[in-house]
């Protein structure tokens, strides 16, 4: 047991020393930030950030900052950013050695706090970002993503870039608000997962649904925040005006069940496949991308399609560009 205690002690000191080494003073540092799980983190200089979640990767891309290391999920972490790809790709995100090997000084993930992530504190402190509908985060809706921008802004010392990213998002909201009409406000929207012939979709509590309701682009018809399956007859009665179909490798065109063919949205050709499968997630960058996709179909065909999320540059989004 003595040996165990010694090692535990060593690892605690180690984790602390990783963040405590001082080199040169940066404006605003040392900084103390409280994360979404209520854990306090103190840094004497901007830490090298390792991303374990899309939300982190997307905000870093928004800030044009190079990521020190990121989890490997195929092509998904190759975001458009002049700063370039992450320096290291973590092959096994559960392995603290890989994070340590990449010289990461803070590992960013999302709530809820999990054993798996807590086990990585031996390599670097784990910072939890807000994630609506998961865990004990006090932020809900899309405001959680704005809060995340502020958190990473504090952590990196890039307050202006954080402000710019927030301004960009607010510009998108106000631009679209200006174009929203009573007609769009009353549109009924359904965002479905199309893995099988069921009606399983994201509910009103989801950030994307909250966002389009706030802007006035429509109301999601499915109740709740969990992704529950709705009875087909009930869905027919809900009668959405628009259906966004997030079917992975499957398109809405593959769908043949009789209730589907009877939906007014389908009859009126007001269905579209979403660009990418993360319509409801994980940052303002993702939301702008989804909004551009969504408003192309439901608001104005002249707003061009956003393309893949990986290649998406929010600064060039027509939704931002129209501002002023």
């Amino acid at each position: 047991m003595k040996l165990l205690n010694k090692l535990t002690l060593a690892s605690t000191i180690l984790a602390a020393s990783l963040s405590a080494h001082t080199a040169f003073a940066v404006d605003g540092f040392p900084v103390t930030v409280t994360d979404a799980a209520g854990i306090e983190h103190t840094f004497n200089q901007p830490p090298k950030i390792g991303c374990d979640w899309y939300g982190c990767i997307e905000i870093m891309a928004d800030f044009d900052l190079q990521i020190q290391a990121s989890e490997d999920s195929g092509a998904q972490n190759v975001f458009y950013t002049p700063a370039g790809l992450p320096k290291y790709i973590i092959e096994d995100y559960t392995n603290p050695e890989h994070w340590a090997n990449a010289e990461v000084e803070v590992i960013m993930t999302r709530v809820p706090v999990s054993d798996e992530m807590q086990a990585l504190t031996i390599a670097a402190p784990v910072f939890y970002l807000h994630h609506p509908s998961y865990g004990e985060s006090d932020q809900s809706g899309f405001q959680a993503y704005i809060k995340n921008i502020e958190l990473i802004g504090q952590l990196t010392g890039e307050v202006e870039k954080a402000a710019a990213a927030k301004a960009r998002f607010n510009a998108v909201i106000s631009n679209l608000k200006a174009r929203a009409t009573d007609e769009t406000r009353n549109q009924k929207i359904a965002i479905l997962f199309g893995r099988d012939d069921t009606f399983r979709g994201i509910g009103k509590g989801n950030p994307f649904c909250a966002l389009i309701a706030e802007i006035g682009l429509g109301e999601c018809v499915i109740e709740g925040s969990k992704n529950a399956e709705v009875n087909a007859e009930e869905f027919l009665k809900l009668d959405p005006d628009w259906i966004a179909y997030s079917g992975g490798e499957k398109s809405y065109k593959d769908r043949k069940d009789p209730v589907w063919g009877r939906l007014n949205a389908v009859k009126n050709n007001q269905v579209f496949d979403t660009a990418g499968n993360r319509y409801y997630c994980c940052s303002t960058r993702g939301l702008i991308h989804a909004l551009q996709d969504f408003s192309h179909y439901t608001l104005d065909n002249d707003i061009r399609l956003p393309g893949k999320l990986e290649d998406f540059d929010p600064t060039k989004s027509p939704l931002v560009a129209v501002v002023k």
Partner: protein
Amino acid sequence: MMSDLSVTNDQAFDQVVVDRRWLKWRWLLLALAILCFLSLMISIMIGYHSIFLVPSRIWAVVSGDENTSKLEKIATNFRLSRAIMAFMVGGALAISGALLQALYRNPLAEPSLTGVTQGATTAVVVFAVFGPTIPNHLVIYSVPFIAILGAIISTTITWFLANRVGKVEPLRLILMGVLVGGVLSSATIVSLIWAPDTYANDLIAWLAGSLAATTWEDVRMLSIALLILTPFVFLSVPRANLMQFGDDIASGLGQSINPGRILVLFTACALTAVAVATVGGIGFVGLMVPHSLRWFVGGDLRRLVPACFLLGGALVMVTDFIARNLSSRILMEITGLPMDSVTLPVGIYLSLLGGGFFLFILKKVKT
């Protein structure tokens, strides 16, 4: 019943065999200890996509030498804690299997085939999905109790049902165990429907049995739990030893059957449950290890249990070493399918290995 004379003759003959077995056992134990040490060293030395640690550097970290790099410290801490955890989990499961096999008088009895593992996993999953939220720092200490409770409830149900129509008979017990286990594991999967998608994914990984999230805190928790259970194991061994020769002989020797059985059953349940609580549903260790050791040391649990502890530990340690260092990229290249770059939980390898082992011996074993 045989006459007294023939019993004495048999005993004299047995004595020679037994002496030879004890001698063999000592050598085996030494060999197993060396095996454990070697697998521990390899586990700590090699890490995929990371540094190679020579023994002198490991020693430098363990002895608290200041002159070590961060990476060396992290690697040693991580690999060592995971290897120790693997060792304890494997040892606990193997002993649990040996006890259950004696109890059920069936060499195929195994925690995951007698409803013990499923009871523990179901309790933990149901609590995680439907139970109240508990503060994070308490989770690690509450989960073992929930798991033990679940294992005991499911085993008691099995026991009670098998007992309902008469005395507890091994064959019926194991049939009920498989049935109860089957119903429970279906119920576990079904209760995941109420969990959010991401959470369901985490629980599926846990159910498969993973050592990835091991911390020193886990190691300390499990070692305390095992220390508490050690006296129970010592008490169980002689009782279980009598049981495996059959109810008739055991009662003939003047042992009341049911309290002894309950003690052995509780010990086996608790050993499995504390292991399951920390790493999830690892199966088949309790089958493979005692079964292969019985060829060498015979059925006497006084020899079997210590050997099981060492070999079970070594088996899980080596398998976890492979699991930790085998990237899914290889599989991705073979199949050409897009996959996340992850390592699979150790439980997956163990259950594929154990399943094969089981089918291989099933034909040879008389049930």
